[in-house]
């Protein structure tokens, strides 16, 4: 399951998807929106994706994880659109026979998402906003 969605993500749905009778472990990672970044107060966040390619890239990194570690099943769901502070923006679930593979694949997945998957986060501050990674946007005015 590799999806980009506009609705809140349901953790249990991902866990149910990766449950496997051969698995002795399920690792999950939840990326949550934070109310500060580099000393500034974040008042709103928004994600945008190139959805067709993002889902394809998620599936590609899932296949790569399956080549690197003996995992059973993997699910990744990334939310886009406005996401309130403290809400999940991405959830990853991985099952494997033994825990090492599930932990490793879960870690690999979040690092790859941040590196290669065409999804962008905009942070809105008091008096400005930034597309993270571009160091551009409306200039920030500090009071």
């Amino acid at each position, binding site marked *: 399951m590799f999806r980009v969605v506009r609705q809140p993500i349901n953790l249990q749905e991902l866990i149910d998807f990766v449950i496997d009778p051969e698995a002795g472990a399920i690792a999950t990672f939840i990326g949550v929106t934070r109310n500060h970044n580099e000393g500034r107060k974040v008042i709103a966040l928004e994600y945008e994706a190139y959805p067709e390619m993002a889902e394809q890239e998620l599936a590609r990194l899932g296949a790569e994880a399956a080549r690197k570690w003996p995992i059973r099943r993997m699910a990744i769901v990334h939310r886009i659109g406005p996401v309130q502070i403290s809400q999940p*923006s991405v959830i990853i679930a991985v099952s494997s026979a033994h825990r090492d593979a599930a932990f490793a694949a879960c870690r690999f997945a979040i690092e790859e*998402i941040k590196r290669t998957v065409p999804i*962008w986060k*905009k942070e809105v501050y008091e008096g400005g906003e930034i597309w993270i990674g*571009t160091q551009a946007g409306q200039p920030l005015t500090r009071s």
Partner: protein
Amino acid sequence: MKVKVKFFAILRERAGVAEITKEVEEGSTVGDLWQNLQREFPKLAVPGIRLLYAVNRNYVSPAQVLKDSDEVVFIPPVSGG
């Protein structure tokens, strides 16, 4: 021939449009298209930005030669997660 260009995130905001169709010359590369688009939409030239390039949903090099009906996307630094 014609290609479809989609803009996302900062580039969508700076272009003021999410999608356009561009007439390109036979043999043009992805990099050529980007140079032309910056002339058409001067705000696309974000200082210091490092772009990746995608054609038909796969990452390619800027030297990739375009084909008719390609879907081209210029990908600003990603920041999902």
